[in-house]
């Protein structure tokens, strides 16, 4: 086999490797979707965040609009303080919008759902959502159910 053929085949080999990496990066991993890096930050307080994690999705009507960037515990109100980064193209949420922690499917991962309000003013960077609903914790629901059953009898 002469040098030209060998070099051609090696070139094809390297090109195939780069193409494979590119395909894996673009079509399989989450490179293309919004990563929460250049959005505006809004905050919300919850009594209980359940299984919410940093990088969990934030969605409105099921559409991904941002990601959770930080979760901390506020010692003044004894509540969880969640920061989320919202894609800047969705910048007209009314200030009385509400945030609730929802679960995708019965046992799926938890995410924040934003329900738009009706005010004329909009949420801006640093705003805080006042109306929030905590995660449903399965054990608590079962506990309440058992108590109410016990009361009936």
């Amino acid at each position: 086999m002469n040098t030209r053929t060998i070099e051609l085949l090696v070139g094809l080999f390297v090109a195939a490797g780069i193409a494979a990496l590119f395909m894996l990066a673009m079509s399989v991993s989450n490179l293309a979707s919004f990563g929460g890096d250049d959005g505006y930050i809004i905050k919300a307080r919850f009594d209980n965040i359940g299984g919410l994690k940093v990088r969990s999705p934030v969605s409105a009507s099921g559409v991904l609009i941002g990601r959770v960037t930080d979760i901390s515990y506020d010692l003044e109100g004894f509540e969880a303080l969640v920061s989320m980064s919202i894609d800047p193209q969705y910048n007209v949420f009314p200030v009385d919008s509400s945030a609730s922690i929802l679960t995708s499917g019965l046992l799926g991962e938890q995410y924040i759902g934003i329900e738009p309000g009706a005010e004329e003013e909009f949420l801006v960077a640093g705003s805080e959502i006042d109306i929030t609903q905590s995660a449903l914790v399965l054990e608590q629901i079962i506990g309440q159910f058992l108590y109410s059953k016990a009361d009936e009898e």
Partner: protein
Amino acid sequence: MLDSLLDQIQRLGRGTLTAISRLGRANLFLIEVFVGQGGMLTRPGLLIKQLFSVGVQTLIIIVVAGLFVGMVMALQAYYALVDFGAEDSVSVMVVLSLLRELGPVITALLFAGRAGSALTAEIGLMKATEQLSGMEMMAVNPIERVVAPRFLAGVISMPILAAIFSAVGVMGGYLVAVELLGLDPGAFWSQAQAKVELYKDLGNGMIKSLVFGFVVSWIAVFEGYDCVPTSEGLGQATTRTVVYGSLAILILDFVLTALMFGK
């Protein structure tokens, strides 16, 4: 009685010392190989030729293996997940296991068997037929001329082969999941995109394959260079390349996984 006991202890000591001295020689050899990389700047043709025999000629087995591993993964994931109505997550399972584990590990195992053993046999035979000493007589550094290009070609080829393996595996999974089992193609891709992270999964898998390529190539060229220059010694060296190479891959894989994906 005492003598035979002493003999046993002596044998144990000799074995330990041999192992340690081999490890020391392997490390010194690695340094020489690093120094020898400079020779390729003036003769890149040497590297191209080795990339051909180490990388291109290993491609067929990698592509076929990747295709079937992806297809089997999709089938198994489907049978396990369909009971929970979660068969749309087949792609997540296939892609994550390919990128994180199967891609780098199976590629490296096949690479050790296909390319590593060939490297050892080639260099070992050169040693047995005194071609390496011949080069030294002609003031050609055999490490620079023979070993360094082979080593570098192995290190470069492994991540490329692993990427091709994973990509072909994903396509195999797609073939089974969408064409054979009738899952929704949109859900296949979007589920994977939602769960797979570029740096954490793809990036760490590539780092793994680079480390495996380094270790397997190192073992292969060292075993060839250090072999007993007889036909028997050559056979043992080739076997050792495959055995040590495979063990090193599996052990390192555990260590790397613990480091990368642990909290």
